[in-house]
């Protein structure tokens, strides 16, 4: 009887440990995904900046043409 109680306690302890670990990993993965998303948004902003710079240069050039 005692053995049974001890074994069940041990298994409960192990299960709770593994659950806690998997929860932590899940949270880490979530953060990782967020960081990746931020990276891709930053790349998007870089592309927009390049396009805006190009437009700005083109405007300058166009006006120089008529002067």
């Amino acid at each position: 009887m005692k053995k049974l109680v001890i074994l069940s306690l041990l298994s409960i302890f192990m299960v709770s440990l593994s659950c806690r670990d998997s929860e932590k990993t899940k949270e880490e993965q979530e953060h990782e995904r967020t960081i990746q998303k931020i990276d891709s948004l930053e790349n998007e902003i870089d592309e927009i900046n390049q396009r805006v710079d190009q437009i700005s240069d083109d405007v300058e050039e166009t006006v120089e043409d008529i002067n």
Partner: protein
Amino acid sequence: MKKIVTMSIVASFLMLGLNQGLAQSNNQEKKEEVREKQMDKADKKADKAVDKAQKQRDKNKDKASKENQGNAYGKDKGDMTGREFGQHRAEMARNKLEESRARINETEERISRSRLQINTAREALEESRKERKMTDEEIKEREQRILEADQRVRELETALNSSRERLQRTERELMKLNIDIE
């Protein structure tokens, strides 16, 4: 017999605890290493963006955009948690977004100035036509160039508007992420 069973159970508990501790510390080290690398990468990217923006500012001699220099790129981040790191990266992205918005406004002003210049050129041409300072051929040629410039500026204005909309979409997505982080 009972003593042996109890001892072995206690020993297995201890082993399990030790293993968990070791695994966690190893895991932590690896995570910190990865985070450190990500931080370096992010900082390099941010520094590059700041340099580029600085060059642009120098080129345009725009005093207003200098306010955007105060960002959190160089701050101490030795023991940041995943959440803190996410917030740090989101802050950097927000700074970049502000910079981009300033650039768009700058370009819009440039377009307005070019419209004025085109109008001035048109008026000057009209005057030349009245006072017969130019031949008909010269006037026609000049008229054509002004028309082309006007069309080009309109096209560029449309392109700038779509860039602005794209930036707004990006901003909305970034805000959604911020809600998740904060």
